[in-house]
């Protein structure tokens, strides 16, 4: 883990409102798929850094795939090559690649696809050859081209029917067809994955989101309810066995 200013190499739109940021110096330390970094521009506002998952590590370069939501991601989107940005990480507990075996399904909801490129590459490198990606989007899909040549079976659903099957991700798969399901996306989707897999008896793993301040486990601001009590998404997660997470009913 380090905290340093990194030089922006690229920062480009891959779809409306979705950008890929590439910074230098990422490979200085080993990075586990599913880990994240805290990013903050040099401007005083917004005050807190923002968590972004590792999208890929290639040689010396570290990249993030992100959706512009509010002030924090907007500030990141305004960076141009040569600008610097504070990157703290890698943080959290990512996916245990050794532990993912058999028929593996990656379920992504929207920008939840971000951590899966690096995960899929790591799984392939570890010899896993039965990988399926089921990705759902509101409108036009993005980030899918990243999986060409990595994942054979790519399934797409869009709510507006603009690509793939019309509907949400659950229409794309039956949990019983897989040995393990890995999900990243909005809470309702992850709750559906948890429930479907529980009924089918399929093991499921989720990557959680929470508002964060420190990102390193010090402030207890990012906790999520689990069967073993309140746990910090940043330090005890973001990756949890789905069965341990107690999704808030609201």
């Amino acid at each position: 883990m380090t905290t340093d200013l990194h030089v922006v190499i690229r920062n480009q739109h891959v779809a409306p409102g979705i950008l890929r940021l590439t910074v230098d110096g990422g490979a200085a330390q080993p990075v586990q798929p599913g880990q994240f970094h805290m990013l903050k521009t040099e401007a005083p506002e917004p005050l807190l850094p923002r968590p972004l998952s590792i999208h890929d590590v290639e040689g010396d370069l570290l990249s993030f795939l992100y959706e512009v939501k509010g002030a924090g991601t907007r500030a990141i989107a305004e960076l141009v090559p040569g600008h610097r940005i504070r990157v703290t990480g890698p943080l959290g507990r990512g996916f245990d690649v050794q532990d993912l075996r058999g028929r593996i399904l990656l379920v992504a909801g929207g920008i939840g696809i971000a951590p899966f490129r690096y995960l899929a590459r790591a799984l392939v490198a570890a010899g896993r050859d039965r990988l399926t990606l089921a990705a759902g989007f509101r409108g036009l899909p993005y980030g899918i081209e990243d999986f060409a040549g990595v994942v054979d079976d790519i399934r797409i659903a869009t709510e507006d029917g603009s690509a793939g099957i019309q509907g949400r991700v659950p229409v794309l798969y039956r949990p019983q067809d897989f040995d393990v399901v890995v999900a990243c996306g909005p809470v309702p989707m992850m709750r559906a994955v948890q429930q479907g897999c529980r009924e089918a008896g399929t093991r499921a793993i989720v990557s959680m989101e929470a508002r964060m301040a420190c990102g390193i486990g010090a402030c207890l601001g990012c906790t999520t309810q689990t069967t073993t009590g309140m746990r910090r998404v940043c330090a005890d997660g973001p990756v949890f066995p789905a069965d341990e997470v107690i999704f808030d009913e609201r």
Partner: protein
Amino acid sequence: MSADIVPDLSVELNGVTLKNPVIAASGTYGFGEELLPFHHPSVLGGFSTKGITLYPRQGNRGIRLHETRAGMMNSIGLQNPGAEVFVRDIAPRIRGLTGCLIANVGGSDIDDYVQAVAMIAAADVDMIELNISCPNVKCGGMAFGMRAEDAASVVRAVRPVCPKPLMVKLSPNAHDLVAVALACQEAGADSLSLVNTFNALAIDVHARKAVFDNVTAGLSGPAILPIALRMTRDVARAVRVPVIGMGGIETGEDAAAFIMAGATAVQVGTAGLVRPDALPRIVEELAAFMAREGIANLGQIRGIV
């Protein structure tokens, strides 16, 4: 001004010598261990632990953090493993991390405070910081910090069971802050730290409801600095005991301002969440400021404003 001065940053606080006046603020530095990948806590003057209560607490549900202009609000709700686990497992483990280990203690009623302080002060910690000002505990944690009588009653009650230096942490929401400070001093506080977070409100106008389940939450960060600095000066001028100032400190010059306002030492919270190297940087910046300005030791500027 001599350019080649090597400033002495050390401060003496109730018999404990801190190598510098920068202390990590409670609730923002975990138990010190979380920061180890970034710096060793021993580079700081000391650190105050996450607030510990007599029994373990899960803390609040729902959203716990919210960002505001130049500040943040939190409603953690004193999540902690309880005094027993702290004394048995945590204190021995983190003892070696710092030259000044301050155990921050919270509570909901006087009995809780007394029992918790008795247990924790018996452990190997250097000081107790009594949080009479946490605004996030429904059962009244803040109430003690609001009025002088209430504050005095809890300080008086824990004083006999606390053989260690007793720092009392004041609430900026107090009705009459100076009166509370004086009452705590009379009741036996060895030092006073301030400010805790400001009771504040954030509304999600789209949802038409408060952001936090508890409605209000505590505001910290650069936004509050000018008010916290004023309060630090008000209290420092009124009391005899050392004052530890905090609220929005981000730079060495901010720390110097609190010392000029009369603080013996400072605490830093939010800035360390923004970047994990903030506190060691503040130490370096303060040293550089003193060297540049020809300030040999902090006594030369303490309380001069």
